[in-house]
């Protein structure tokens, strides 16, 4: 552990502006910042804790990893870079940061590991309650609750961060891996999330979001965007989850009416992990082998994804299925476009009661793209207003002509007026589709930092 003066020095070298921070990093890397050495613990990772360990041991003979890191987080001044050397840090308690514009930087997501296997207190591994924070190049393993929760931040960047429960899928694992909620300007880039009992990467009730170049596997939901506005999810791999990529809107929350989400250029394959969510959680209903699922959102574009080997269906578009008491909530998906995707080997073994219900209408294999057909009753009678329907076009898949197969399940009459029930494989009559969304744009300095750090 370096003397605290070093941390205070960061204020001199890094007065809180991005330019100064970058300059200082380039000119005087690491030394001017505040490295926190790993305690001398056997990580089993092949990494030897860095040389600072000796210094740390001398400075504070009984300092445990929690105390050393939490001290650095509390003492940090805005603009500080807190370095976590390589090694495995066994943490007894949850860590928290509430200083703005701090960077927590490890030596790599497989080199600097914050392990919460022995966690005694704290509802998450790392809790960030401040804005402008960058988390980079470290891993959080085996948190008792969520791995990394960021609440209410304006500006949060995850770069090459890994959140994992190392025992694999298990209902006893924490709910979320990377969990920004009620945030604005969220960037998740190059992340890895494994084993979450809800969602590996979960962005909730947030605004202006990019999730890219990341890997989500062995979670219930790989990547989930919930009750959020303006999100781009692209160039990710979602595999071996129960469901690959979910775009949901739920009732009863301060921010709802989720909209303007683009899911593109992702690889959504082999989502073959049986649902292990604890009962009561909404994702507990997601059938194994759901590629992309859109529930109750409006304005969602799903395009240029490779969606393969998903046993229930490729893209599932549904209304919110439960009862709710929230007059402001709108439970129907509207303005959903699914185009230019490729589907292979879809719907061969539909899972759980939802999969069975779909298969009872569509037969097996289930089509590549399924819409429940659930619309407000006046839309059912008078037709769907322009730009508020479901648009499916130009996908490659399992239909005889090489396009993707589709079904509108028409579920309202299925349950209520079954003699009128007419599921349809025709592409929805929705002239011209929905206008393309502009997508998310992060503040220039946040993008610049992500490029250079």
């Amino acid at each position, binding site marked *: 552990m370096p003397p605290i003066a070093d941390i205070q020095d960061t204020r001199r070298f890094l007065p809180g502006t991005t330019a100064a921070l970058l300059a200082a990093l380039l000119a005087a890397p690491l030394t001017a910042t505040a490295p926190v050495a790993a305690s001398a613990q056997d990580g089993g990772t092949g990494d030897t804790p860095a040389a600072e360990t000796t210094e740390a041991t001398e400075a504070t003979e009984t300092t445990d990893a929690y105390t050393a890191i*939490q001290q650095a987080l509390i003492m940090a001044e805005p603009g500080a870079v807190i370095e976590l050397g390589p090694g495995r840090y066994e943490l007894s308690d*949850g860590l928290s940061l509430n200083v703005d514009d701090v960077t927590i930087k490890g030596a790599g997501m497989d080199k600097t590991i914050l392990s919460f296997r022995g966690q005694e207190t704290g509802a998450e591994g790392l809790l960030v309650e401040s804005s402008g924070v960058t988390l980079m190049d470290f891993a959080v393993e085996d948190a008792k609750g969520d791995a990394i929760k960021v609440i209410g931040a304006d500006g949060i960047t995850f770069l090459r961060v890994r959140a994992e429960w190392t025992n694999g899928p298990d209902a006893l694992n924490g709910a979320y891996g990377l969990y920004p909620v009620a945030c604005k300007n969220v960037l998740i880039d190059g992340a890895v999330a494994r084993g979450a009992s809800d969602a590996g990467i979960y962005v909730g009730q947030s605004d202006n979001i990019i999730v890219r170049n990341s890997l989500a596997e062995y979670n219930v939901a790989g990547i989930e965007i919930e009750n959020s506005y303006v999100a781009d999810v692209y160039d990710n791999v979602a595999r071996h989850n129960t469901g690959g990529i979910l775009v949901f809107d739920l009732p*009863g929350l301060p921010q709802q009416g989720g909209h303007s989400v683009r899911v593109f250029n992702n690889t959504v394959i082999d989502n073959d992990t049986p649902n292990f969510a604890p009962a009561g959680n909404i994702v507990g209903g997601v059938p194994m082998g759901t590629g992309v699922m859109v529930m109750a959102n409006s304005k969602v574009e799903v395009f240029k994804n490779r969606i393969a080997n998903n046993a229930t269906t490729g893209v599932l578009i549904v209304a919110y299925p439960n009862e709710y008491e929230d007059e402001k909530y709108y439970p129907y998906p509207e303005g959903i476009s699914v185009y230019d995707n490729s589907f292979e080997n879809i719907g061969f073994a539909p899972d759980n009661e939802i999969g069975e219900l779909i298969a009872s209408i569509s037969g097996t294999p289930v089509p590549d793209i399924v819409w429940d057909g659930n619309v407000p009753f006046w839309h059912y009678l008078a037709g769907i207003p322009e730009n508020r329907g479901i648009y499916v076009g130009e996908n490659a898949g399992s239909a005889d002509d090489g396009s993707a197969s589709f079904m509108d399940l028409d579920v309202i009459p299925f349950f209520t007026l079954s003699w009128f029930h007419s599921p349809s494989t025709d592409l929805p009559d929705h002239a011209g589709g929905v206008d393309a969304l502009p997508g998310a744009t992060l503040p220039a300095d946040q993008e610049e930092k992500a490029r250079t750090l």
Partner: protein
Amino acid sequence: MTAPIAICRKILAAALIAAASAAPQMAAAGVDSAAIQSGTPLKTLSAYGFFDDVPAHSPADRVLPYDLITPLFTDYAEKLRFVYVPEGKTAAYNPDEVFDLPVGSALIKTFTYPADMARPGEDLRHVETRVLARTDKGWRAYPYVWNAEMTDAVLSPLGAKLDVSWQTVSGATRTISYAVPNMNQCRSCHVKGLGRDRETTPIGPEAKHLNHDFAYADGVTNQLVKWRQAGLLTGGPDNPADAPRLARWDDPDAGLTERARAYLDINCAHCHAPDGPAHTSGLYLDSRETDPAHLGVYKRPVAAGRGSGGHDFSIDPGSPATSIIPYRMNSTDPGIMMPELGRTTIHDEGVALIRDWIAAMDE
């Protein structure tokens, strides 16, 4: 004999202690309001001058003891609470919110354990004192941990873990690993708002929590009346019966709903509020909340993870066994328990109250 306390985790306060102002530790010289206002925490509790006799907590001028009708549960600790308002300043009465105490004010709360719970208030072993200081830059929270000699408490920004033992009412010895929160954790419960607009605020000194009689050294008086008499507060109704008042959670004469709502209010509502850290759950537990769904009735969990306990609703009316709220109250697993911080034991009596309340609800 006092309860043994061992400090398990080395308390590191290096930087803040180094930075702390070297105020002379004079006794009985009045409260150092300038230090409170400055935003730099003092190294020791005694340095503030809140108490003429620090271990005994005998208050200095303009320092007034108080309590809450229904208090927050913290591992069965007893709490000694004091408010200080500087000379020449007052807070203005507000029926709906925590009193807006002026700059230079402080709230002081000592967590202490009687050696024998059958003899509350006697043979006390102080554990920690939390000072909430109204500085020029807003409220700041500072944890102080008592020394082994029990002569003073020392600033401990990183909190601490302490083995605390006491004899229960039934005569058994109970030992817990008491967690003194670090400065961030203090703030986690006291924060309101989002983004760069977050503010630290007090919890508790509000009309509805204060509005009952307190046994002062010079007699029993309603606290709202006393605060005005002492010159800490202006305004408010002349008759305390016209001010809001919550039930005492363990008052056998109060209604079950009133007791349960008071308990949830003080234990949960600082976080479970539209401007609190748990606002993203949509579960609001203020005693004035009227929307059953916000209160948890048939409300599905959002991000509870295994904290749901396999249950579908925060409150399943008539069925405490399938309701999430008592499930989370009845756990000490960090991934399940509520509140997230501030207790390492289960409040059996509190859980029983909430269970009874839910059981009595119409399905």
